[in-house]
């Protein structure tokens, strides 16, 4: 992610996009596209990756987001990335469903019949990933965004501080640590 500044923050870019600033639009696309592409690539199963272009999944999500700027209530940069992540995740799930062939006489098979899984599913298991996603939603928005930004997008603590409006990198780090501990307790309590 680019270093942020009042003129470079996503909020200002969105505002400039609304007045037709093409530079800002390109900057926003250039900023978020690579990071979302990498994320989506880790979440698309191999068989769906063969049918859906990771590029297009992300491109379409970004264009939809830019086309619906009036619908998005901007809180801070972290929330915007989290919003885009959810959009890409929905698109990924849609592509996975689309790629499956369901016989009419059998219920939808939620497991991946051919055994292939996304990179992240290979690492922790599909069921665990779903539990993780569910537990994430139970966290407060700041803690949830802190976990996503650090674990999934690999943002640095200064970047997280800027993205979530924290006063310092160390404050952001402490937010991440507490959020991880809280998430760990919730997952353990299930």
């Amino acid at each position, binding site marked *: 992610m680019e*270093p942020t*500044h*009042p*003129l*470079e923050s996503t909020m200002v870019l969105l505002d400039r996009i*609304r*007045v*037709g*600033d*093409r*530079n800002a*639009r*390109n900057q926003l*696309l*250039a900023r978020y596209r*690579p990071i979302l592409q*990498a994320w989506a*690539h*880790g979440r698309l199963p191999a068989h769906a*990756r063969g*049918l*859906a*272009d990771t*590029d*297009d*999944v992300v*491109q*379409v999500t970004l264009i*939809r987001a830019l*086309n619906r700027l*009036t619908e998005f209530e901007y809180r801070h940069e972290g929330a915007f990335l989290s919003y885009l992540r959810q959009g890409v995740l929905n698109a990924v799930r*849609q592509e996975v469903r689309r790629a499956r062939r369901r016989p009419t006489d059998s219920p939808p098979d939620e497991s991946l019949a051919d055994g292939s899984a996304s*990179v*992240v599913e*290979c*690492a*922790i298991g599909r069921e*665990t*990933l779903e539990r*993780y996603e569910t537990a994430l939603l139970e966290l407060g928005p700041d803690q949830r965004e802190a*976990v996503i930004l650090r*674990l*999934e997008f*690999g943002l*640095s603590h*200064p970047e997280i501080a800027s993205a979530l409006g924290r006063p*310092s*990198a*160390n404050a952001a*780090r402490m937010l*991440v*640590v*507490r959020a*991880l*501990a809280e998430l*760990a*307790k919730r*997952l*353990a*309590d299930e």
Partner: protein
Amino acid sequence: MSEPKLDPDLERTAGQVADHETPDWELETGNHPDLRGPLAALRMMARLAAAHREVRRRFEPDRSVDPGAGADDPEQREPAFSWGFLRALDPIGEGSFGEVWRAWDPSLEREVALKLRRLAPAAEGVPALLRTSDPATRYWLDEARKLARVRHPNVLTVHGAAQHEGRAGLWTELVRGESVEARLAREGPLPSLEAARIVRDLCRALTAVHAAGLVHGDVKAANVMLEPASDGPTRVVLMDFGAAHAAGGDRETRGWLAVSTGTPLVMSPEVLRGEPATPAADLYAAGVLLFRLLTGRHPVEAESLDALRDRHERGERLSLAELRPGLPPAFARLIDRALAKRPEDRPEGAAELARALEPLAGPVRGRMAVLAASLAAVALVVAIASAIAWFERPSDTRFVPPERLPGPQVAAMRLGDIAPGEGRGEQFGNGEAGIGDANGDGFADVIVAGAHFSGARYLQGRVALFLGNAAGRLGKPAWVGYGRAAGDYYGAFVAAAGDVNGDGLADALITDQAARSSDHQEVGSVALYLGSKQGLEPEPVSRVTGWQPHARFGAAISGIGDVNGDGYADVAIGASNWSHRHPYEGAVFVYFGGPHGLPSRPDWRLFGGERDAWLGALMTRVGDVNHDGYADLLVGSPGWKGGHAAVVGRALLYLGGPHGLATKASWSVEGDQPSAAMGYAVGGAGDVNRDGYDDVIVLQPGWSGRGVREGRMLLYLGGPHGPSRTPAWTAHGFSAATGLSSGGPAMGDVNGDGLPDLQAGSWLYSASADRRQLGIAAVYLSPREPRAPHPAWYLAGDDAGTPIAAWTAPAGDFNGDGLGDLLVGQSGWYRGDQRGRVLLFLGQRTTSRR
């Protein structure tokens, strides 16, 4: 309400996961069986994070520069200047002491870092040429010579020190990497193992320095470099001995030197009191560095020197335990000892501190100098097998004027041709420009960019040249240029340069938006390609590089005509995020053309003058506004506030002359609405009223009249004393929430009535209440009556998924029929593997029916 207290062991392990460290899971679980469940969850999250890191690693662009693509050869480069036998090439940095340059040592054929002491102001009656370095220089040179005797892998190697023509300098090894300060800014507090390793190696350096009888005097994060090594751990290098001095010597001088040349926040209490700095003071500073690496803060902070001294006296220090909970107690005690108020309570020497840190140290992560990303291994999926249901594919030729556009339109333009992009995701048409006649065949030529093109390198970018012809067909490109490195976004901006080298052929400017400096900072660069019989020369004749990271150098580029009357066209480059005296004030740099292209340094500079003024966003050539034979320069500052309560923006005109551009603006206009971004884009209109004076356009894309921020374009007529004070004509945007943005308003004569016409585009245009963005390109015929504010011709997109007018630009007379033509980019368009396209519209003779 305070947060509930966390189990400290759980918090500590969560901290390790947050820092990407690897806890000993078996040990942790064995020692804390009551935390088995949460520890297992943390372990899962660590694996999830590692999986995402692995995917990102595969996606990381290869930032190595292809040696075959014109890599910088310091031996061949023309130097900026010579100092003694050294040839200064590029500025690396500057500070209160002077400047640092990357230089070439021809005697040993190697690159070096050349540090030049700043010259003292000229004494009264002394010519400026006879200025010499300030008196403290002699101490500096003496200590540099002593430092040259220190040979240690963690100490910067000094090759020599001398004075040439009154200017003192020293040259050292050139360390490539990033400072610890930069690492902190980028990543925040470091993992404890890495922090310990860095300071351990630093202490080894200090051991060698102290053994040579020297004290560093300014040990801080900015003076410690991390140099990645391809075959081993990252090398920690202690730099900047500007405050260094002998450990013995005159007490008063040493005390003055210590306080005047060091950095207060890292100074030990005794130095702040005015006592001489000793090796113990360097150890204190090492403790401060360790504290900062772990927390991001200095242990004692204050707003002034006096307040800092008071806090030291009272022993007021930030709590390490609160800022970095979970730090091993032994580590915390060691830092406390290094930060002891009395020198005698600190470790006995740097070697003792290094030994104490050894068991706490881990590997220092280097920033990958070369990322071997095999694109084949991470090849993206080739084709879409099924439609994505979110939007329908646009038709190729149907453009339906939406119902919300007012007024009848005249058939001023006709579709000439469409050229699609090639590579997936390249966003072909994100920028285009008519550059004039590059190959001398009498037809105007155009360049079109796909800055997101990924070929041999990911997101390297691509620009294609299409030669004009009588058929008005784009056809296949006659020339294609590519970015040199991954992530360059070559072609982020393109523009006509004019005839820079005076050979009668038009030249082109192309920006690498993400071009990086030798220490991997994004600085941007602009390449000048000369016209040739084949179209454009294969390699740029000049490449101008920014020198301030993330300043958007090259986001605005334009040939501006011949401002100094030497027969060569000149070039302006904007950097709207430039910080000179004020943060993000923006800057415009002008480079005078010549027979060999452009100089490496600008000939004229302008800065925004206030914080966030954002000078130099978009600009194009305005021509000769006062008809004195010299081209003029119009710049905009959309973030300018002046004395107003809110940001209003403004535009300024600088007249050309025999000595170049004037230093003061001869004309300016301010915005009349807050946040309307007056001056966001500025350009020439040609001589609209045919009075011999070129006229100017100022865009105000955030202006709100009928609706919300529809934007407008203002025309000011040129005259002998500059443009008029009030606009002669105003054009409005089309619907609520639409701005106006374009690649230069001057279209030439589109309809054959002898008057130059104007164009503007907006990809944000939406036709209906659902606010789906279709985009629109519009042509305004030169006004015969001032009150007609609407376009005579327009083209609106019909598909919200791929709006048109990502960029619009005049093409010049592409088909040689004497009429101006128009380029409209649609970078979001796609079909199969193709991504983005450009539409060429040709002017046609018509009668206005307004």
